[in-house]
């Protein structure tokens, strides 16, 4: 994956949008979800994306997460222009450089906490010699050892989110993408999770991009991007 940096992606930024437009063709007419968005996110940034429902927040996050590609414009992730990339390459990009944290945690119900963390690492390395590393990552999330063998259904929301963050971190990605990470948690647990993300940003230099409705959560970010009707305001 360490390929030459595309010329249009040159620079210090880890994520760069240049006039990115995303149009969803629908039977009732095309819907423009993002219109000519230009945006630079530097390494180590902590960014909150805010905006009303349907404003294009999710589309922005999906594009950053390489789950979708722009209709037009250049989108660079880690110096690579993802326009026209194959599904296989995008998948590898997600696996190796991006960590996902979801509102509903989205752990795999069939796997234990530890196995959930092992999953992306096995995907990447193809090796099961990763138990120690995964336990280390889980420990750093302040999760009790006894819970490692529990299935997600046996864990509380806060515990599940800690496991999910551990899963996002296990391949040591530079970018963490969080979609309402505290949306399903009570205030106290939510604050603990935000502290965890804050530490990851501060101590380990992870670039964090987070979608949120909650202004108190957005306060953790260095920068807030507000988006209305597909445009950055």
């Amino acid at each position, binding site marked *: 994956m360490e390929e030459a940096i595309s010329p249009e992606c040159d620079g210090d930024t880890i994520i760069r949008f240049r006039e990115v437009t995303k149009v969803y063709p629908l039977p009732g007419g095309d819907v423009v979800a993002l219109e000519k968005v230009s945006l630079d996110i530097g390494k180590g940034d902590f960014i909150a994306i805010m905006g009303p429902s349907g404003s294009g927040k999710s589309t922005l996050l*999906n594009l950053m*997460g390489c*789950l*979708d590609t722009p209709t037009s414009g250049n989108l660079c992730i880690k110096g690579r222009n993802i326009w026209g990339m194959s*599904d*296989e390459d995008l*998948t*590898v990009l*997600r*696996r*190796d450089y991006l960590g*996902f944290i*979801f509102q509903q945690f*989205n752990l*795999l*119900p*069939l*796997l234990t906490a530890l196995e959930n963390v092992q*999953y*992306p690492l*096995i*995907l*990447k*390395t*193809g*090796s*099961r010699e990763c138990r120690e590393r995964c336990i280390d990552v889980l420990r750093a999330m302040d999760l009790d050892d006894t819970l490692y063998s529990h299935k997600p259904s046996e864990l509380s929301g806060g515990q599940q989110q800690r496991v999910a963050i551990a*899963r*996002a971190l296990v*391949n040591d990605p530079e970018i963490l993408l969080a979609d309402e990470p505290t949306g399903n948690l009570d205030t106290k647990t939510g604050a603990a999770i935000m502290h965890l993300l804050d530490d990851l940003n501060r101590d380990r230099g992870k670039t964090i991009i987070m979608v949120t409705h909650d202004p108190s959560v957005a306060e953790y970010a260095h920068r807030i991007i507000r988006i209305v009707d597909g445009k950055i305001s």
Partner: protein
Amino acid sequence: MHSLMFFELARRNVRLHWLRSLLAILGIIIGVVTIVSMGILGNSLVLAISDSLSSVGDSIIVTPHTGGMGFGGGQSSNLLSDRDVEQIRRSAAPHVTIPVYSGSSRMKIGSEDTVGTVYGLRPDDIPILLEVEEGSFLRGSSGAMVGATFAEQNEIKVGSRINLGERGSLRVVGILKERGMGFDINPDFGIVVEDQWFSQAFEQEEYNQVIVKVKDLNEIEEVKDSIDRTMNRKETVVDVIDTRAILETILTTFGQISTFTTVIGGISLIVAGVSILNIMLMSVTERIKEIGVIRSIGTQRKEVRRMFLYEALILGLIGSSIGGALSLIGGYAVSMVMLQTTEYLFVPSSLVYIVYGVGFGLGTSLISGFYPAWKASNLNPIDALRHE
């Protein structure tokens, strides 16, 4: 290592939904057992038939033309003369030509009255056609050899006397080995006497049929044609058939019956395949969100595909192996019920059906898994993630 993890995920999913997995496995088991039992039954049937038929595939039978097919004995009006036999002998040379008298007669054995077939053969020809079980071959003119079944039914032993009424009386010199049903002669149910004795006793000069033994099977067609050309030059005087062709026709027919029953088994396997398809599609639908998650955290399409194929494979593997084991019992049961014997069960040509059955079971499961696996792998991760 990837594969192991996906296999493990598939295994856990099969276990989580154990009831419907069990039902799908049951379907495969039934399919495999049916296909294998039917196959074994068909094969045993063919084996049993070919065993009971005299295995002589090397004979050409020449009978007087009667307009229809009638072999064996009894056509007193239409017979083969010495001249005919000589002509056949010449056209079939150097192969052995055996003229046969046949008729039936009332017989008195001890105090019992019965009716049996009587064959008249030259003593020199008998060892070519028949084998002796007990006693010896015919030497003198007043001896008789008795077919195995006939001897058993009438409690005839070497040394017994058979009285053919005014035709005369015979002493049993030998009991023949059981020969099976033949197209030429069926001595199992009758007795064999010297040709001259027959000719006198039955007042019959001409022969009922001529058997030509062909040493090299490849020449059978040639000899048959040669006889046909010589004898039926102007009009059809004789019918010429070769036992191999009849044997082949019969075996082909039973082979077709066996194929047919196996196909019925195959249909039940298809039904099982549909049920796997069904539960796999259910599994995909239930796990759309999960598929979205694993795709978003870096699982390739082909890996998702593999995971679902493993699931089908696990169902197929369990179903087929249990089915394979059970079909031995199934095959045993059908053989016992239909053929009253299991001697044709433990032979390679029967047991190979277990391999076929298990193979088809696995194949059906995998094929049924393809579409669901393809469907799962082609989901758009964003839509899948949003799915509730």
